């Protein structure tokens, strides 16, 4: 009954929205012309002289990231980029950013350190000027690494890991440097007079930064509820993509968002996904401020402090996710897509509809392949990762066929009959799949797409499939498929698929000839 209500509401809401759309102007904030003013309630710690180094939470899982050596090294290398760029900017070497500094960072990204690097040691001049900022970055990076360590730790169940992630968040949030886990209005945060300066003037270096924000966010769905043994094989696909393409993309409309790259994780831990996005936005703000030659040193110091203030948890005490009443497009706008609490409000967003760079307008509440609303509860469907994106789909068939129409290797992570066993399928360039579960069997009785999550499913054993069939006699004549048989099927793009045809909000003007859809 709950499903009926939900579907009904979705339908009605959709119709309502359809009406709203007529004549609707593309939402988006105008760039502000004045520099933001210093708030009166700046936290005292920003002026504290201590180094205030914090140690991470002691636990047996620390440094479990090293169980995925290539991923660990790539993550360690990400510590170098911002540090080198910031050092160059504060030392008056901005003119070298796209050449010498880019080459230096790129060299490190290709020849990664085997251990984490001390960002402060790489950027000593920056640290002397902006030591308070480093406290925010360091603490958030610690959360980044420890959450990864928890997921990569082999000794615990998924439930233990999820509880520990919650404890880590509480550990993180207890410090004054903690970034808020509330969704923030990204359009607002990117609307200041200095905004977009860095990406405009230094597209290659910005590309590297956004490239490793891609890495820092794409990994969570690779790890979350995935058995430890099945994590490293996925990084073979993701790591190759990172090095070949993602680091060198200069045409992204906006930084990669956690919920775009790891929707399952962002749904489960929205506060952490939001904190990472807010952290990455702070990085962008700082890049833009430091890259503004018109600003004096004192103005830069002041604007960096204000940028920190905006995203601190202490600035948003007692505010709640989803709330925006009267505060739309402001610092205290905490709207999020209804179906994705781990995502702030994006330029042009309307409810669950948002522009995803490289994918076009997507509805986060619907299957990316068949456009039908995602199922509630179990099985929750699947995700498909290919060509740098990760999308939610309703069923295994949608996952396979979406991957099948996309060039390159792909990863499917899907629900099975067993809520504790995630199916991880990895395909080669030709769509030949390997499975993490030996003997996986599939049910696929092609029918109406709105019911695809019923007739396209994966089962960990034949017995489990037979049990399902006995409970659902409409499938009694359907032959169970092994992986090879299932992989050979392809029903193409479903007729229910609807592309949302609106212009790119980041590139105003007529609809682009290039891009816009999948």
């Amino acid at each position, binding site marked *: 009954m709950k499903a009926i209500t939900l579907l009904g509401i979705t339908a009605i809401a959709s119709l309502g929205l359809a009406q709203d759309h007529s004549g609707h102007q593309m939402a988006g904030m105008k760039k502000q012309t004045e520099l933001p003013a210093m708030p009166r309630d700046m936290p005292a710690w920003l002026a504290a*002289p*201590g*180094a*205030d*180094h*914090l*140690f*991470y939470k*002691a636990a*047996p899982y*620390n*440094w479990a990231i*090293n169980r995925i050596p290539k991923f660990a090294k790539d993550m360690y290398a990400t510590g*170098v980029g911002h540090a*080198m760029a910031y*050092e160059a900017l504060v*030392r008056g070497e901005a003119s070298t950013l796209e050449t010498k500094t880019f080459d*230096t960072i790129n*060299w*490190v990204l290709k*020849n990664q*350190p*085997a*251990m*984490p*690097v*001390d960002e402060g*040691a*790489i950027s*000593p*001049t920056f*640290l*002397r*000027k902006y*030591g308070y900022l480093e406290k925010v970055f360091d603490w958030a990076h610690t959360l980044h690494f420890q959450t990864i360590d928890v997921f990569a730790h082999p000794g615990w169940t998924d439930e233990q890991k999820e509880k520990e992630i919650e404890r880590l968040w509480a550990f993180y949030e207890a410090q004054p440097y903690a970034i808020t886990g509330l969704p923030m209005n990204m359009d607002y945060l990117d609307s200041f007079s200095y905004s977009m300066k860095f990406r405009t003037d230094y597209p290659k270096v910005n590309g590297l930064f956004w490239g490793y924000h891609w890495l820092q966010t794409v990994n969570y769905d690779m790890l979350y509820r995935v058995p430890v043994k099945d994590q490293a094989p996925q990084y073979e696909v993701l790591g190759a993509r990172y090095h070949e393409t993602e680091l060198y993309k200069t045409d992204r409309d906006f930084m990669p968002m956690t919920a775009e790259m790891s929707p399952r994780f962002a749904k489960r831990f929205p506060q952490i996904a939001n904190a990472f996005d807010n952290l990455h936005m702070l990085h962008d703000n700082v890049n833009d401020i430091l890259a503004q030659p018109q600003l004096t040193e004192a103005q830069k110091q002041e604007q960096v402090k204000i940028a920190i203030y905006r995203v601190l948890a202490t600035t948003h005490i007692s505010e709640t996710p989803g709330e925006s009443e009267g505060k739309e497009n402001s610092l205290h706008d905490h709207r999020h897509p209804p179906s994705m609490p781990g995502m702030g409000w994006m330029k042009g967003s309307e409810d669950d509809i948002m522009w995803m760079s490289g994918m076009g307008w997507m509805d986060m509440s619907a299957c990316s392949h068949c456009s039908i609303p995602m199922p509630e509860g179990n099985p929750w469907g699947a995700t498909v990762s290919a060509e740098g994106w990760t999308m939610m789909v309703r069923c295994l068939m949608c996952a396979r066929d979406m991957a099948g129409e996309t060039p390159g290797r792909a990863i499917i992570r899907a629900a099975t009959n067993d809520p504790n066993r995630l199916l991880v399928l990895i395909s080669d360039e030709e769509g030949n799949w390997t499975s993490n579960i030996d003997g996986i069997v599939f049910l696929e009785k092609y029918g109406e797409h709105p019911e695809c999550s019923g007739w396209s499913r994966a089962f960990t054993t034949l017995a489990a499939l037979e049990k399902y069939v006995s409970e659902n006699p409409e499938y009694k004549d359907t032959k169970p498929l092994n992986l090879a048989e299932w992989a050979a099927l392809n029903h193409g793009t479903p007729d229910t698929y609807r592309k949302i045809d609106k212009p790119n909000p980041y590139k105003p003007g007529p609809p682009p000839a290039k891009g816009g859809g999948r």
Partner: protein
Amino acid sequence: MRRLLLISGLLLSSLAFASDHNNIEAGRPLRFDDAYSIAFRERAFEFGLSLDTFRRRGPTYGNKTEFKYGLAKNQDISVAFEPTYSSSERRGDIGNVEIGYFNGLRREIDNSPALAYRVDVGLPTGRGAKGLDLRFRGIATKALGQYDKVHLNLDLNMNTNPGPGERRHTVGAVLGYSKPLGYPRRFDQTLVADFAIQQSKNEGDGFVGSVGLGLRRQVSPRTVFDIGITSDIFSTKGAERSPVRFAIGYSVSF
């Protein structure tokens, strides 16, 4: 038993943080500290072996173990044991137990140096030891160029119950230098060097001046290996010199 295994597991896995090759501690391997404490809540063990040679007697071997704890932001406490063995006397000495407190007052901000102080108390647990050895050290760290740093340590030492012919107060100073090696291509080792001058404990003896050179290298996210060599290059009024002092150490954080 299970608990023991868990604890040893924790220690072993620790052998695989937070000792930081950039964060320089006295004894590891040279005599100077930088002006930064270990991190809040960090725990660290530092192990070291040393060999002191002398002109007029046989070498002395030392084996120092120190435990540190990040008590609060910018503050740490430590306890250290350093049993020694004198080859000329052919006997060992359990040595004094040292308890220390470090307080980082400020980080380096713009052109102002980072400042800290530490207080160490040596308990008279060693052979023939009397009274307390107290040391107050003032520490300053400042950038020299982009990555290089200089560290100035000023010491005031006091013994509450000096022996016959021994000074109650002595003074010393160390000028340290550190430089990360390999930037911008590698980020795991730091060269350290120092010049120290220390007043002799013995009344009538003067000062000993020494130089040292060493390396701190990150071995894993939690461990740092260090190695150093020091030589007393001059002394006044006949103070005893050690021509060569070797130190090798290993620090683990968890």
